[in-house]
């Protein structure tokens, strides 16, 4: 059975785990280095990215995780997870670090505060179908290198469209939360990378 880890330092770990179990995966919460070893893919959940970053470093998980990501571990990050996967960050807290799995710059809290959090109709570019996105104090992709595939875009308060789902090599990131919907397509896309 496919073993998928969910980084369980902070955030909506349970929702990701339920969705992965629904897809037939065996789910491992990952809080320790040893738990990174056995997994075929990893999810970095929604939550507070600055907290996740601090705990990753405090418990010496950052370097081993970078190593596994460097050797092509399939990974999905939603919201805070998208921030964690970015190479560069705008509007992070002082000293906040990211994992750099995707050559993109992400703007934290780009869509605004909680009163601006919203449900938005999106187009899932891989097959042109519609998708319902739940954005909660969500980031967006400010810019990215060539080779980063944009999977969905949404209109920001600035009136411009910004990438809100991207794929690069074995990494997928979404600014919205597929895990709190009933839509399995994003998680399935992760499993397809294994």
């Amino acid at each position, binding site marked *: 059975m496919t073993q998928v880890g969910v980084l369980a330092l902070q955030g909506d770990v349970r929702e990701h785990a339920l969705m992965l179990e629904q897809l037939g995966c065996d789910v491992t919460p990952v809080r320790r280095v040893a738990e990174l070893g056995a997994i075929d893919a990893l999810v970095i959940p929604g939550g507070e990215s*600055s907290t996740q970053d601090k705990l990753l470093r405090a418990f010496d998980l950052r370097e081993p995780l970078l190593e596994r990501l460097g050797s092509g571990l399939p990974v999905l990050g939603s919201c805070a997870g998208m921030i964690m996967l970015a190479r560069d960050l705008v509007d992070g807290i002082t000293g906040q670090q990211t994992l750099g799995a995707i050559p993109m710059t992400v703007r934290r809290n780009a869509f605004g505060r909680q009163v601006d959090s919203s*449900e938005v109709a999106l187009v899932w570019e891989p097959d042109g179908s519609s998708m319902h996105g*739940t954005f*909660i*104090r969500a980031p967006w992709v400010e810019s990215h290198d060539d080779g980063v595939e944009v999977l969905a875009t949404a209109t920001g308060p600035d009136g411009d469209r910004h990438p809100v789902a991207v794929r690069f090599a074995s990494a997928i990131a979404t600014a919205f939360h597929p895990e*709190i919907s009933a839509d399995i397509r994003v998680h399935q896309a992760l499993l397809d990378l294994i």
Partner: protein
Amino acid sequence: MSDNDTATTPQVGTDLVKRGMAEMLKGGVIMDVVTPEQAKIAEDAGAVAVMALERVPADIRSQGGVARMSDPDLVSGIIDAVSIPVMAKARIGHFVEAQILQSLGVDYIDESEVLTPADYAHHIDKWQFTVPFVCGATNLGEALRRISEGAAMIRSKGEAGTGDVSNATTHMRTLRTEIARLTSLPKDELYVAAKELQAPLPLVQEVAETGKLPVVTFTAGGIATPADAAMMMQLGAEGVFVGSGIFKSGDPASRAKAIVKATTFYDDPSVLAEVSRGLGEAMVGINVDEVPEPHRLAERGW
């Protein structure tokens, strides 16, 4: 809303974005702060959010008088100082304080018994707001009544400002026991259960079916040490509010970091032992038994 509306305009303030916001706070620590400087310390320590207020519960308790919503200048100063979510407290039933807090852009409102209630009959009709609310509860019936009024997150009440965790323990255990009881009842006994809980039947049926509240449940009230936070997590809390426990202690920054780590590794005694070392003085605290009954905050709200 119709499907058609959803297709054209983003929908703000929906149940999903309100309850979803609380899901993102899970496994985290929300810290009471009274100044922008404290908010920065909390953010740097790894808080998932801060609660902006004028006086921490320990000071409200010792200074007395009517406790109200904080000055908008203070709330705005804290919003400007940090980029993590900012919550603020409104008095029970004071819907205008809530309107003001929403207009300031706070990310969550705590309709809180720590402040002096403004209405002894009605809580705020929380469905009328775009901003989500967290409310305190001492038992399942109270939690479901708050959810039926629109609360998107529940916390135990504990006895705020004491550093005595015993009431929070009671509330978490009561919630757990009452939920477990509902799941064991035959369906045809849920009608009477709803009557006894004084809660809407559909919510009672939902809890009986799922074995959990339909919203995220945190703990609050008297949490002062990493061990307190971990104990609440082991009792089923999904995250922790720390009020006076951090900034009334000897070394707030270290204690804040330790409680953050303890909340993540709540089930690992070796980590808990490590993070509990050398934190200096905990808040002195008061035993709940020594608080005269009229001054017990957990008994406010119903």
